[in-house]
């Protein structure tokens, strides 16, 4: 995407299919994310964004088939390696921040143990050294009174603190890439602001690459460098964050942005997108948005629209983009 910077992760044509499913749940998506950059993957539930993150972490269940034409993570192939290789990467070079801080932490172990465990596993530190680093990590994520909290159990912490612990756990081994899956969705708005600001600060300090998975365009606007909009397992539009907000091309992107209530004075009815995301069994053969697109034409239904550059770095998978040109001709 952004040329010049070295990509930490580069994926080409990633597909995921679950055993027995009639269609790919992830259907040929390509991603690049460079050190210090944040790539946001945006989409509604069922679009495949979480599956993508799990595929990149090698955490999909065994009935899932993951394939890609090329994958590079830190200059080495990522997919197609054995489980041991995955275990050495996970939690070490590549770490994850989860959506639900309530459930992402094991309720029966103290948070200190849970952070130290990851450190001991990947750095081979002694229990004492790992604990010391766990404490340092808690301080890094601005947990007040960290030394006392080290022995606290998850239920003794508030949601915001728990999410800080999850972040500390993810950062414990200074990963090259963090995948944050809806990191603030479960949080109140003031806490969300704290966490987003924390993530941004820490990313700036460490230069870690980040993939941010979210449904909230506000979060995207707040922290992302690049955006990929996903719909039904495909990327329908991607590009630098500003380009996407100012020049949305794909009808889905437009509908999504239009359905967000504005924080300004009321501007009439909200835009809506009819219907819902098709299940794998209902997947249309051509453009996967065709069943819901108000601009659909016959060609949309037959062939998969290619992801093509509208402007350099801004790609869209719609044969009718830019809309005003196509529709203007029709109208």
């Amino acid at each position, binding site marked *: 995407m952004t040329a010049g910077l070295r990509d930490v992760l580069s994926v080409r044509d990633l597909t995921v299919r679950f055993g027995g499913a009639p269609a790919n749940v992830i259907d040929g998506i390509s991603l690049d994310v460079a050190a210090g950059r944040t790539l946001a993957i945006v989409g509604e539930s069922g679009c495949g964004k979480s599956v993508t993150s799990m595929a990149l972490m090698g955490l999909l269940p065994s009935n899932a088939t993951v394939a890609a034409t090329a994958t590079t993570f830190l200059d080495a192939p990522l997919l197609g390696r054995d489980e041991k290789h995955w275990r050495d990467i996970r939690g070490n070079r590549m770490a994850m921040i989860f959506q639900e801080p309530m459930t992402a932490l094991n309720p029966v172990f103290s948070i200190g143990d849970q952070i130290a465990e990851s450190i001991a596993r990947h750095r081979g530190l002694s229990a004492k050294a790992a604990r010391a680093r766990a404490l340092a990590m808690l301080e890094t994520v601005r947990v007040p009174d960290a030394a006392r909290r080290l022995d606290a159990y998850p239920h003794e912490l508030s949601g915001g603190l728990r999410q800080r612990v999850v972040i500390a756990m993810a950062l414990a081994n200074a990963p090259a890439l963090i995948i944050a899956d809806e990191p603030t969705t479960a949080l109140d708005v003031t806490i969300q602001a704290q966490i987003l600001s924390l993530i941004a600060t820490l990313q700036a300090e460490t230069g870690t690459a980040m993939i941010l998975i979210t449904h909230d365009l506000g979060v995207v606007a707040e922290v992302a460098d690049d955006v990929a909009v996903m719909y039904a397992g495909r990327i329908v539009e991607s590009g630098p964050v500003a380009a996407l907000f100012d020049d949305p091309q794909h009808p889905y992107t437009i509908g999504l942005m239009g359905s967000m209530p504005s924080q300004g004075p009321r501007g009439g009815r909200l835009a*809506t997108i*009819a*219907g819902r995301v098709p299940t794998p069994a*209902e997947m249309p053969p051509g453009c996967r948005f065709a*069943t819901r697109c108000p601009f659909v034409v016959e060609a949309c239904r037959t062939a998969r629209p290619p992801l093509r550059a509208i402007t350099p770095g801004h790609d869209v998978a719609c044969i009718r983009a830019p809309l005003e040109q196509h529709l203007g001709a029709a109208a």
Partner: protein
Amino acid sequence: MTMIETVSPILFRPRSTSRALQKFLGNKGAMIGAGILIVFALAAIFAPWIAPYNPIKTNFLVIRKPPSALFWLGTDELGRDLLSRLIWGARGSLVAGGISVAIAMAIGVPLGLLAGYFGGKLDALISRIVDALLSCPFLVLAIALGAFLGPSLINAMIAIGLSAMPIFARLTRGQVLSIRHEDYLEGARAIGLPDRWIIARYVLPNILSPLVVQAALTIASAILAEASLSFLGLGQQPPYPSWGSMLNAARNFMEQAPWMSLAPGAAIYITVLSFNLLGDGLSDALDPKSQH
């Protein structure tokens, strides 16, 4: 102005009940279990027509004969045809299982519903009673009830049913507690529905699936308990067969006539296995969580 969200034909999904049914039908183990049980149940129902011999007719000329073309499963200590007794015995054993579980549920489930739904003092009282019953050893209760009511299959069922009752009360109460704060119950109260209606229409249907599973498992243990009570002379009365009493009679001939214990033993084993497989299948099919 509002749009009607139509559902295209490919989006059609079967109704809840039939969906659970489909899931159930797709469960191989449950199907095998159900198949076996249907065969056994049919055998029990049509016993007078399909049993080759009179199950209580003794024949002193063919005492303890091994399986043969004449007697497919052999004969017992009084020269009765084991196959015929097995078929007739299915009545006793399956009915014993079914009725005792019905008794257990008929008492335990309402108690659990009351305790769980209303809570407070009623809950404390019911829970105490249930605890007390639970800590009374099953066989003591069953033997005492059996001896009190007199030995017979019906009384054995009552005894087993009463003994299994606290488990259902406990399970029901726990389940009610787990859904007591669900939004749909609050919604029902918000409409102004009376409590008994809410219990019947909202609470009970939603806790049914673990109860059904437990029932399938309890039927299995009730059949075994009938065998145990038979072993102590408190079950089915002679000369009528139940698998438990057959096994009991066969115990003295395990070496001389192993087929005598093999037939009812295998029947109990297969039935219990089937009920458990069925219970598993129901558990999977009825569990709303597994539908997503």
